[in-house]
């Protein structure tokens, strides 16, 4: 799967880049090993691991720590192991297979790989390039919007993994112009926000206004005044909501 963003929504992908991923992969082990060995190997590789990016990679080759959130065997047959892995962004699965092969002492490599989750996106919303082409055709040539509307998701979907804050109508326009969010503009917010978190700031209708950096925790944002969220990327066009005198 590959989430592709249109127009102004491309800015939301920065927050997907750092979100957790899930893959289903096929590992080929170079000599037969018992299934019990594979299972204990998998539990050894769950949690924090050190990984050297592969020779052919798009990042600097220095040892780095990555977290494997879950790692489970789906099917093991002969020297092939089909597995599911949930991992931190920037984990190389190809390298994970090689490292697990080394640990087994017999070697292994990755034979196939498929991404099954990227942050809030999973396989439920997948569309093939053919589906997309057809949908565009129906819309442009036949004037039928049904298919294209089903295929294109809201930008809000792409930031669904971020904690959200909803702001008053009167606060929206200045935020669209790049102003930071102060406490008086907040109507509702989710608990558990920590200072430094990326947060999705939305209108009361649930439209994404901007994504920013929390300057305080959720509890602290309940106070009377002060700076709550610094603007990073604005999504809503100015003028969508009316200009209001400063709060």
């Amino acid at each position, binding site marked *: 799967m590959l989430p592709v*963003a249109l*127009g102004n929504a491309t800015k939301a*992908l920065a927050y997907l880049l750092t979100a*957790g991923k899930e893959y289903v992969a096929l590992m080929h082990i170079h000599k037969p090993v018992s299934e019990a060995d594979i299972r204990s190997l998998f539990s050894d590789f769950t949690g924090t691991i050190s990984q050297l990016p592969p020779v052919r990679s798009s990042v600097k080759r220095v040892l780095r720590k990555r977290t494997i959130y879950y790692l489970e065997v789906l099917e093991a047959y002969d020297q092939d192991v089909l597995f599911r892995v949930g991992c931190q962004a920037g984990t190389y699965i190809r390298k994970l297979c090689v490292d697990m092969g080394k640990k087994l002492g017999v070697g292994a490599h990755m034979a196939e790989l498929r991404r099954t989750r990227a942050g809030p996106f999973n396989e439920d919303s997948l569309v093939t390039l053919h589906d997309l082409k057809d949908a565009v055709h129906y819309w442009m040539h036949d004037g039928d919007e049904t298919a*294209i509307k089903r295929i294109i998701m809201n930008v809000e979907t792409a930031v669904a*993994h971020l904690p959200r804050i909803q702001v008053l*109508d009167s606060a929206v326009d200045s935020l669209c112009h790049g102003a930071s969010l102060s406490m008086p503009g907040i109507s509702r917010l989710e608990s*558990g926000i920590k200072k430094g978190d990326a947060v999705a700031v939305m209108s009361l*209708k649930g439209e994404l206004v901007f994504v920013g950096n929390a300057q305080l925790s959720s509890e602290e944002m309940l106070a009377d005044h002060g700076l709550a969220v610094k603007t990073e990327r604005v999504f809503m066009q100015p003028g969508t909501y009316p200009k209001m005198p400063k709060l």
Partner: protein
Amino acid sequence: MNKELNKQSLPFERIERKELVRREAETSAKFGCRPQCRSIGELIKLGVVNIDKPRGPTRMSHVGDPIRFQPMLRTYSG
């Protein structure tokens, strides 16, 4: 929730969030619209498509091209 589900979750799903109300307020129907009500024109300027990437091309190469070259769609994939 059951144990199996916890094992299969990514970190952002492990945080339980409640909605806190700082100030109850209404929103005016005169401005903006709920995301579900966007027109196709608005979706093209602010939407996401979850592509079932074919085998072969990597995201770094030209997998986005068939979409990028659709008239009116400006995209970036990541």
